[in-house]
């Protein structure tokens, strides 16, 4: 029983981080109808930033959060300006493939610069476990999840309350009308790409506290976040939040009741089932 409870807690904890990653992806998708296949590699880069800040200057991953938020925002804007914005009027196929190129480039640049080795931040500031009844909860994971939830709520607040946020939502609803209302949609695209990347950068700081850091780490998280985005409804930030937690739970429960080797296969199967029954996703329209 306590093992089941443990799995439930683990599912919730990783699910919150998934949510944060997927919210960044869905924001980009919703606003400009572009799938960023390099999203996972952005996560990998930010994890490496945290790793090097820690290794070279002893800066704890917690303090790498603002650094990654800013760096990844810049990276997102650059990728939008120099790659994505140039294919937005092109064929759908080019829109799909362009970020694949960025993804392969970044993952292999990391291999070249830092070798394919697995690394771990050995002594993060936040460590140890906390007992919830008889269930041990890892403190770095707990902080990562709570932090993800706070950032996620912050994003929803930002979208609803600020002028920029409202402009993003308006562009997402109808690009042409937004343009007619005087919204600079190209600027909104760049900002959304930046914010989406910034979110995954923050998630990278959180994950760096306890997860292995290696050039291919983005592949797994990237693919899972596609499934989450689709599950939640493409472009729906709230949907991605709910679906991320759901996927975290499904993954650990599937591993517990079925076979741990198949936990990701179960997630993908759940995704396929969802799009068959409800192509617009759980909270999409």
């Amino acid at each position, binding site marked *: 029983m306590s093992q089941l409870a443990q799995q439930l807690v683990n599912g919730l904890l990783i699910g919150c981080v998934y949510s944060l990653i997927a919210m960044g992806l869905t924001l980009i*998708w919703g606003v400009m*109808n572009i*799938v960023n296949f390099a999203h996972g590699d952005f996560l990998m880069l930010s994890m490496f930033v945290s790793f090097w800040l820690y290794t070279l200057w002893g800066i704890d991953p917690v303090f790498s959060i603002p650094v990654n938020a800013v760096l990844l925002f810049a990276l997102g804007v650059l990728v939008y300006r120099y*790659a994505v914005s*140039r*294919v937005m009027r*092109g*064929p*759908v*196929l*080019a*829109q*799909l*493939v*362009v970020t*694949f*190129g*960025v*993804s*392969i*480039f*970044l*993952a*292999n*640049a*990391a*291999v*070249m610069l830092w070798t*394919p080795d697995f690394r771990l931040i050995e002594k993060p500031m936040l460590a140890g476990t906390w007992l919830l009844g008889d269930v041990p909860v890892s403190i770095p994971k707990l902080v990562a999840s709570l932090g993800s939830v706070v950032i996620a709520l912050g994003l929803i607040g930002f979208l609803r309350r600020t002028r920029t946020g409202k402009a993003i939502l308006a562009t997402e609803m109808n690009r042409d009308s937004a343009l007619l209302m005087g919204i600079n949609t190209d600027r909104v695209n760049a900002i959304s790409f930046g914010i989406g990347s910034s979110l995954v950068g923050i998630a990278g700081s959180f994950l760096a506290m306890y997860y292995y850091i290696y*050039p291919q780490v983005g*592949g797994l998280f990237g*693919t899972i976040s*596609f*499934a989450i985005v*689709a599950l939640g409804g*493409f472009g729906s930030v709230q949907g991605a939040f709910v679906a991320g937690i759901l996927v975290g739970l499904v993954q650990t429960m599937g591993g517990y009741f079925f*076979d741990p*080797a*198949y936990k*990701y*296969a179960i997630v*993908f*199967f759940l*995704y*396929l089932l969802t*799009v*068959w029954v409800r*192509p617009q996703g759980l909270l999409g329209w």
Partner: protein
Amino acid sequence: MLSSRASRIAVAAAVLAALVAFPLVFTHPFPIHVLIIVFLYALMGVAWNVMGGYAGMLSFGQAAFFGIGGYTSSFLFVTYRLNPWAGMVVGGVLAALTAAAIGYPCSHLRGHYFAIASIAFAEIVRIHFNNWKLIGAAEGLTIPTQPASLAVFQFGSSKAPYYYIVLAFLLLALALCWWMSRARMGYYFRAIKESHDLAMVLGVSFVRYRLLAIMLSAFITAVAGTFYAQYVLYLDPESVLILPISVQVVLVTMLGGAGSVMGPVIGAAILIPLSEITRVKLGHRGTGIDLMIYGALITLISIYQPRGVWGLLSGLARRRAPTPAGPALATQELRR
């Protein structure tokens, strides 16, 4: 572009003759190997085109069919000594049936949605094959070597027979594709891609033709998988069922020109030698430089040549002779 039909046929015949003579002139194994891989990816590109270029289903999961084909024939040979040629047909049918089972519920998905669903499907297959003890799980499957003979689809260290076999497969697939783009079915496919709703109103059974396209595409890709298995005599999930293979197939087609019969061949002829040569020249230290270049190339192609080389050529041709050329129209259709 060539103006008259006769000169076009003459060029085709000359290219074909040069390709047939190639292994007789260049006996060094490396160029023959590169061309084998070119033909293999051209073959898979042609198969992708049936689904993606004509019928508008942008699959990023072709590696699954490639793996199913290779694994089926290899498993049947290793376990039951079934002839690989027969195994190839079984693999093709199995892949087509799998494609139908997965494609039926997915056939209403469009654009990005279909692409992501195909990735999810291929990932499930990869994870399953990595854990499936019967077919060797993560350790893979080794095909025992046999005395070289066409009957067992093995030729020891000589590459020329493999070269001719894959070339023959490619020509067959191209002939099929060319016939299809002219036959009623090809028009149906393109009608569906152009507008689902309109095609349905006109009485084109949307699901039936999409399913047909998926199954045909899966069959050809599975045949390519068997060829690959017989060529390298070893399979494991992390070398045949991975996303980079699916992406390579898409890329070859896109670079050449999706929706044109010769597009994948042109794309493969440009991209594969480039990636094979950079791999050999730069990749031996495992530094990732070769793949970095490859990634940058993909991005540049999508930005500067999204309609492919064929689109460029027929664009030039149209400027000279303003007739609505078929392939140019077909590539235009890739815009939603």
